């Protein structure tokens, strides 16, 4: 379970998160929607400790992410993250991209790491691209590679930061399909997205972020069908 209580985050004098409360239960898929600059992506960076926080608390399975004694490297193994930019490691083949962290972080043997990596690449549909360098892959394939790389650490949670925003329109589908597959398999996911269709069809809960606050949160039927908040209504009217 990920439990976020009264989270505050600022860059200098600019406050981007102004008191966020959010709970993600095991097996849940929660989509976070909202305008650019509403602090959605920052929230994910805070959850796996890539960003410091100024107030409040984030607990992952009872472990305080920003407490002094927390072993972040250990914690991050349980939080897989996929970024907006593809972020494949360009100097490694697809297989090496996925096998590296299991080997040097988890201490798997070379052979075991390879086996894990191969299984994950097949999982995301890249079984025929094992020895290809990322430069030779399309954006959608690179993003699926990034998903496989995160999955290879066998995380309990997956965080998606606008995973499809930088893709050409025709490549969005294959990445969303992979994410849908993960959701069906019961992965706990926090998905920051602009894909309203995905948010509606796949999520258990949808949170609408507005200017650093959770304006409204609820099941997709509520958010997309009968939003309580006027702001939510106006936002959804604009993006449709």
């Amino acid at each position, binding site marked *: 379970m990920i439990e976020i209580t009264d989270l505050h985050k600022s860059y200098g004098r600019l406050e981007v998160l102004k008191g966020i409360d959010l709970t993600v239960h095991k097996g849940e898929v929660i989509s976070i929607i909202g305008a650019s600059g509403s602090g959605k992506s920052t929230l994910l960076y805070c959850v796996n400790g890539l960003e410091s926080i100024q107030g409040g608390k984030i607990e992952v399975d009872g472990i305080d992410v920003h407490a002094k004694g927390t072993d972040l490297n250990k914690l991050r193994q349980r939080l897989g993250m996929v970024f907006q930019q593809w972020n494949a490691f360009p100097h490694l083949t697809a297989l090496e991209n996925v096998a590296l962290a299991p080997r*040097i972080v*988890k201490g798997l043997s070379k052979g075991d790491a390879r086996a894990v990596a191969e299984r994950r690449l097949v999982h995301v549909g890249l079984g025929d691209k094992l020895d290809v360098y990322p430069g030779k892959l399309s954006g959608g394939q690179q993003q699926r590679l990034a998903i496989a790389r995160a999955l290879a650490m066998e995380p309990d949670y997956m965080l998606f930061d606008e995973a499809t925003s930088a893709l050409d329109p025709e490549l969005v589908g294959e990445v969303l399909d992979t994410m849908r597959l993960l959701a069906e398999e019961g992965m706990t996911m926090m998905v920051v997205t602009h894909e309203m269709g995905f948010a509606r069809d796949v999520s258990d809960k949808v949170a609408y972020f507005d200017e650093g606050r959770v304006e409204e949160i609820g099941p997709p039927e509520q958010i997309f069908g009968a939003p309580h908040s006027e702001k939510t209504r106006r936002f959804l009217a604009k993006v449709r």
Partner: protein
Amino acid sequence: MEYTFHWRPVFNRLPDLLEAGLITLEVSALSMVIGIALGLGLALIRMSGNPAIAWFTIGWIEIARNTPALLQLFFFSFGLGAYGIHLTPYMVVLCGMAFNNAGYLAESFRGGFAAIPDTQMKAARSLGMTATQAYLRIIIPQVLRIVYYPMTNQMVWAVLISSLGMLVGFHELAGETQRQAFRSFRLFEFFLVTAVIYYVIVKIIILSSRLIAWRLFRY
């Protein structure tokens, strides 16, 4: 034109020249190895933004890049000599060139690091790698590729610069040529042959650099 060319004395001494060519290669390669290590260190220190030692690295880089290499060599010969530290000609050339290489390479490295998007670091850390692991496995290999071409240029430059050894009494290729030329009075012939040897050395370096790159960078 009354001058008659005499090539025989040069060809008699060719083995000496070729041997001196090897010394040129050796001192250049060594100065590169030291220069790369120091340059990487200078770049990392400068980027770390520690003001206490930043002035030191900036001073080093600026002096290395903005004064003649010859002046830097003189610092290591006469300069240190005035304080009772007498380096051998070999050490003068090696230290001077390593100092010079480090200054130039530090700037190349800084540019290389700046060219790697910081999301690469984030991605590595999000997989649970430590900062050191991320640097060694993800960042530095990519930086090395970016600075590979400037590094090759620097190696060529190092070979050309090593000829200054002639002015501090070091018998690398140019120095040895000068010694032999003065003995035989066939200055022009000796230096012409030496020019050819330098040309060949430079070509070999560029060619092998390409071969290594072809083996090393498959992406």
